[in-house]
């Protein structure tokens, strides 16, 4: 790190020139930042304090939208679903990729091919993943049900995405399929950094593979795990795109998360008919606060990981 903050106040000629060049280099990115991040965000905050249909003049109503949120059962339901989805997907997508990475790191012939295959779902768009799995889950002729019938479990076959009890687990499976390869690679990169002599010492002491995993690999990977958990939590709070494609939040709000809820309010079929743009933006502010909470969680976790 060569980030020395210069002492302000002694700007000689060449130094001043260098400062100016630095500012010139970052000018475009700052301009974009102001136009497409800071300004919309500030405006978002203002709109959430108004009643507005998206055209005409917004009517300032203070915290009314936020008060209405508290009485909105669908809001609470989608908040709960968001949190459940986030917690479950984080647990699954932290533990399984770690095991996968440890398996892969044993140095197999063809490990590059394995890695390529595991990473494939990450490369295609979420529209592709969503549409593909939606027809695989199809109640009548989907691959999942065909396979269940094939192994004699035809009794389990049903319309996975249309049943409120199975819709979330079904989407979580897709999420795992989609992202496991990515988190596996992060762990894999982390594994390369572990000092091999630790394992050699453990071997001499007669440690089993499981003990090695638990007493060496897991503790040494703690900083990497912190990153994986953070990315998962952020992804969970954003858990929106896959659900948007696969179910649109249905059936009957069973897979509704904050993202699909606010999107439906702002751009859905009723958008423009009822003045809910302000209300939708208030929901998006809640998403933002949750996202920020996740970021602080990250700082806290990485700090803890360093202290240990």
């Amino acid at each position, binding site marked *: 790190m060569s980030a020395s903050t210069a002492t302000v106040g002694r700007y000689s000629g060449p130094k001043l*020139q260098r400062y100016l060049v630095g500012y010139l*280099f970052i000018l475009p990115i700052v301009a974009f930042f102001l136009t497409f991040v800071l300004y919309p965000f500030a405006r978002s905050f203002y709109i959430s304090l108004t009643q507005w249909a998206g055209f005409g003049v917004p009517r300032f109503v203070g915290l009314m939208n936020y008060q209405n949120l508290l009485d909105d059962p669908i809001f609470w339901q989608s908040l709960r679903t968001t949190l459940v989805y986030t917690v479950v997907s984080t647990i699954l997508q932290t533990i399984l990729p770690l095991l*996968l990475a440890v398996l892969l790191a044993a140095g197999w012939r063809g490990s590059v091919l394995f890695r390529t*295959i595991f*990473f494939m779902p990450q490369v*295609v768009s979420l529209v592709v993943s969503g549409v593909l799995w939606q027809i695989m889950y199809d109640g009548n002729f989907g691959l999942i049900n065909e396979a269940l019938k094939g192994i004699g479990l035809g009794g389990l076959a049903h319309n996975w995405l249309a049943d409120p009890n199975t819709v979330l687990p079904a989407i979580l499976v897709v999420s795992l399929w989609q992202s496991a390869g990515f988190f596996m690679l992060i762990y894999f990169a982390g594994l390369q950094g572990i000092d091999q002599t630790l394992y050699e010492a453990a071997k001499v002491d007669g440690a089993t593979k499981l003990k090695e995993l638990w007493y060496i690999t897991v503790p040494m990977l703690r900083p990497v795990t912190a990153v994986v958990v953070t990315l998962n939590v952020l992804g969970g709070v*954003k858990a929106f795109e896959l659900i948007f494609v696969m179910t649109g939040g249905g059936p009957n709000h069973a897979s509704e998360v904050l993202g699909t809820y606010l999107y439906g309010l702002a751009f859905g079929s009723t958008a423009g008919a009822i003045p809910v743009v302000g209300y939708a933006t208030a929901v998006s502010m809640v998403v933002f606060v949750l996202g920020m909470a996740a970021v602080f969680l990250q700082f806290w976790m990485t700090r803890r990981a360093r202290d240990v």
Partner: protein
Amino acid sequence: MSSTLQQATVTRNGQAEADRQSRRRYQTKRGIARTIGYLALTLLSVGTAFPFVWMVLTSLRASNTVFSEGIIPRTFTFAAYVQVWTQVNLPRSFLISLWITGATVLAVVFLATLAGYAFAKLDFPAKRILYFTLLSTMLLPGTAVIVPLFLELKQFNLLDTSSGLILVYIGTSLPFAMFLMRAFFETLPAELADSARVDGASEFRIFWSVMLPLAGPGVATLVIFQFMFTWNEFILANTLLQTPDKLPLQPVLLSMQGQYSTNWPILCAALVISIVPIVVVYVRMQRQFVQGLTMGALKT
């Protein structure tokens, strides 16, 4: 690994025979464990790949055989591809996607290289504060700004135009891109720039003639990453573009989902066509691809 064991056998001669036996036992045990591990990996990768295999198989069916011939069709036909190519006008949206992606990648690479270099190698007041402010927006959930972005483009008369979408893509991609390029420029030695400075080269000259030629690998990583992100993005594209004729690939796939919900061969053919460019790029440039993704995650 076995060198410690060897040392042990050399140093403790009396124990050599016992050691050899235990090692043999250990190796058979290891052989079994390896077989199980290999089987597990094979099964998991087959499971991961199978949806794609099924997608390709389904796209090669005649549309009337989906519900009658089980998982693997008995006859193969390219009819669905022909239909997608002509009826849905997929080529048009394919070209639109290429244009949007290409323009975004070019702009992002150019601007992020400048900014990344400045944050890595130049010195100016408030540098750290600026850097972290820009970086922190990387963590904003996209849904939190989608409504105001929509309103903003409407205000500037850029709604439903590809240039509006490109501008939004550039704005939202730049923080991460800058982060990636900065991480890369950090790895280049400062001596090069210093000696050029001693020779009296201007800062711009140093960047252009000394540093930029060395930035190849970093730029390659960013190009691939940005290509993948832009090609696959669909929420913003779906929201900020509305005229059917202007839609890039992903929103078209989304609308096909409703339109052809029971015609799986057509749906799957469209999906296959849409992933061809990205799979080609991925397979050919896997190293940078993986490097870019893990670099972003681990170098925080």
